């Protein structure tokens, strides 16, 4: 039974850790499917996390914090959009620039406003997301096997956690079953086809970029308002890049994205759990190796185990009307 408890706990933290990845990877899905590569997921997430932490601390309201996160993230997306869609600049340079600017400015602003070494004040009560218990969670807790799965694994998460998982089928539906999705996928493959069909390539790509901003806003808010109680300097810690890896790994498909993010979340959870515990047969494993495991696996998987991941054909290329 103890082993079962361990598994449940491991899976529970898997879910907790994969939520920001799912938000960010889905965010990337919208823009990259529309042909705008976005290496700035990391920066947008970090900016959103800071905005959420700062605003929630000042107003005491978690929802105003969430709105601030989305607002900042969308603004950063629009900067990326302006640089790469309107001005036809390099999408990579723009994305990297956003990452750097956000990393530096969150620390400076945090220190100037709160004087806690770049952190925002610790949040509590209404300024933070509370976990939700699903109906009857208490009642079935003691039922063997099913009980712990329902009560500990499926119940007791944040609102944003449920939203992240709900967004997977919703994104699939939007991309594959709506007019917006059809056009969005088309503009990522052959913007010329969209343009000659009488649809604005620019407006369509901006809308995709805005969707990305909103989702990165959720990701950031989850980090500082749900998973942690406040913003900490550099708290995204490369999650934006892992989300990008998951996006490629999943070949730009929503359900695959969820699975990839869960896998990366699981590795992360495993690394945390194994810290300080000797492995059977192998013995003590250095913490650093465990922490590096998700990244090593990403490299190995991307290098050969998933077949060829073909990105949207027009990805990364600004659209210029042919002369």
């Amino acid at each position: 039974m103890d082993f079962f408890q361990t598994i449940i706990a491991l899976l529970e933290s898997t879910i907790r850790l994969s939520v920001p990845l799912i938000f960010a990877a889905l965010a990337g899905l919208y823009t990259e499917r529309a042909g705008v590569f976005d290496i700035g997921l990391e920066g947008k997430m970090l900016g959103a996390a800071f905005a959420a932490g700062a605003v929630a601390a000042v107003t005491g309201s978690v929802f105003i914090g969430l709105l601030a996160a989305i607002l900042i993230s969308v603004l950063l997306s629009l900067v990326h959009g302006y640089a790469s869609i309107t001005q036809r600049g390099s999408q990579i340079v723009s994305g990297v620039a956003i990452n750097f600017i956000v990393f530096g400015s969150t620390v400076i602003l945090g220190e100037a406003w709160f004087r806690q070494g770049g952190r925002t004040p610790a949040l509590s009560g209404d300024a933070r997301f509370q976990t939700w218990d699903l109906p009857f969670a208490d009642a079935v807790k003691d039922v063997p096997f099913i009980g712990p799965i329902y009560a500990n694994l499926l119940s007791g998460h944040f609102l944003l956690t449920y939203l992240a998982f709900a967004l997977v089928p919703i994104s699939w539906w939007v991309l594959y079953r709506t007019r917006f999705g059809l056009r969005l996928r088309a503009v990522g493959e052959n913007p010329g086809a969209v343009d000659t069909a009488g649809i604005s390539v620019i407006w369509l790509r901006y809308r995709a970029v805005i969707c990305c901003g909103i989702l990165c806003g959720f990701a950031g808010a989850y980090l500082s308002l749900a998973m942690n109680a406040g913003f900490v300097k550099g708290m995204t810690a490369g999650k934006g890049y892992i989300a990008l890896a998951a996006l490629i790994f999943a070949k730009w498909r929503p359900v695959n994205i969820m699975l990839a993010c869960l896998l990366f979340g699981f590795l992360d959870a495993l690394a945390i759990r194994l810290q300080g515990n000797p492995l059977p047969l192998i013995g003590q494993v250095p913490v650093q190796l465990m922490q590096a495991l998700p990244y090593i696996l990403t490299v190995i998987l991307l290098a050969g185990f998933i077949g060829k991941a073909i990105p949207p054909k027009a990805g990364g290329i600004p659209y210029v009307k042919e002369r």
Partner: protein
Amino acid sequence: MSDLAIELRGIDKSFGLVHANKDINLQVRKGTIHGIIGENGAGKSTLMSILYGFYQADRGEIVVDGKAVVIKDPNAAIASGIGMVHQHFMLVENFTVLENIMLGAEDSQVLNTSISKARVELKRLEKEYALEVDPDALIEELPVGLQQRVEILKALYRKADILILDEPTGVLTPAEADHLFRILGQLKDQGKTIILITHKLREIMAITDEVSVMRRGEMVATRTTKETSVEELAELMVGRRVLLRVEKGEANPGAVKLSVKNLTVRDGRGVTMVDNVSFDLKAGEIVGIAGVAGNGQSELLEAISGIRRAVSGSVVLNGSTVDVTGHVDPGALRSQGLGHVPEDRHHVGLVLKFDESENAILGYQRDKRYLNGPFLNMEAIRAEAEEKIQKYDIRPPNAKLKTANFSGGNQQKIVLAREMERGPDVLIIGQPTRGVDVGAIEFIHKRIIEMRDRGMAVLLVSVELDEIRALSDRILVMFAGRVVGERGTDATEGELGLLMAGVEGPKEAAE
């Protein structure tokens, strides 16, 4: 009601310093096929892009069906009943036929209802115009001819009455092109108006009712097709008399320079593309390889020039055996006297982002003439490039210009100058005049004959049968990877056509 489908009045358009369209007037009558012909860069595509709302004219008026209209974007063009089939298809390759046809014309936010409506409407269009295509097939899995059909259906789905086709046969095999012309004839019979943009005179003569000629941004003439001739149109296009027939004397074949024996080549998927091909090529003769595109000619050229490894067989170049089944260094072949003008100049023949002078030595950059110790001798390179520019009349005459900024014909001349001027013993040329305008074709053909007369052995591959017949001293016909026949200069077009279609092939090959 007017009997004119489209009237353009005084259309004028400049891009920076380039005056692409100068005061263009054009009248297209309803229910006709109207050809617009002109050399590359004459302004045909610009004019049609203005009509389709891709660009705005600086001045001028567009009248559709008797009403003056402003076409500010493709939407407005579609609303006026104008549809366009672009030279490079505007299709999303990993979408289905149905999704491509629907794109931009979906009638609701959620696709379900749009899809079923589109399916019904597509069925109706297929019946009405006899244009069958599987609505659920992915575009990337369809042959080019069918992809083009999808483009036409896309326009019809949007209720186009006026159809513009921009260089529609550039990517088609002769058979597919014939099929397209039948479709266009049918559409005309059903009352559609068709504007056909091309630089191929034969197509104009074969299918149009009227033809307008453009030259350097101006509309120089409009003729009734029946009352004009290929010669007159060519002269109008180029602005001077053009020799459509190449004049050449008898060949004086010498020693064998290239000997190919039992060559077999497979492609990446393991399909046999060249099947046991043997032939000899002598000094001072042009051997033409005719065939419909995709019958192994490309692979044959690649194997001989050392780009693709052969499965079996042997090649003797200039007396020395080339290890075609092992590792071949194309550079080494060059130094053994092989010149190669590749079929695809954009991807294999040139680096479009390089300067003209850099492309003029590409592949020969290790030659001492171009080196200054470990560095390139830019002065020598430029001086030689300028010499070639003079000799081959490459325009604009600027060795520092990026190669992408030259027209197709001039780019081809850059490649030809590079490969011919070194005086190779064997010159293999793929598609010498693909995407090249009439004036430059004449020049290129003359040069090829000149090389032959100097004693070069020339192997010529072209999908243009006219070109093969005009230049070759001997003609080999390839079908399904095999040489199915050899003919002399007296072979008729019909005879070669049958061989190309594989009709007489098996019997003769068995001999």
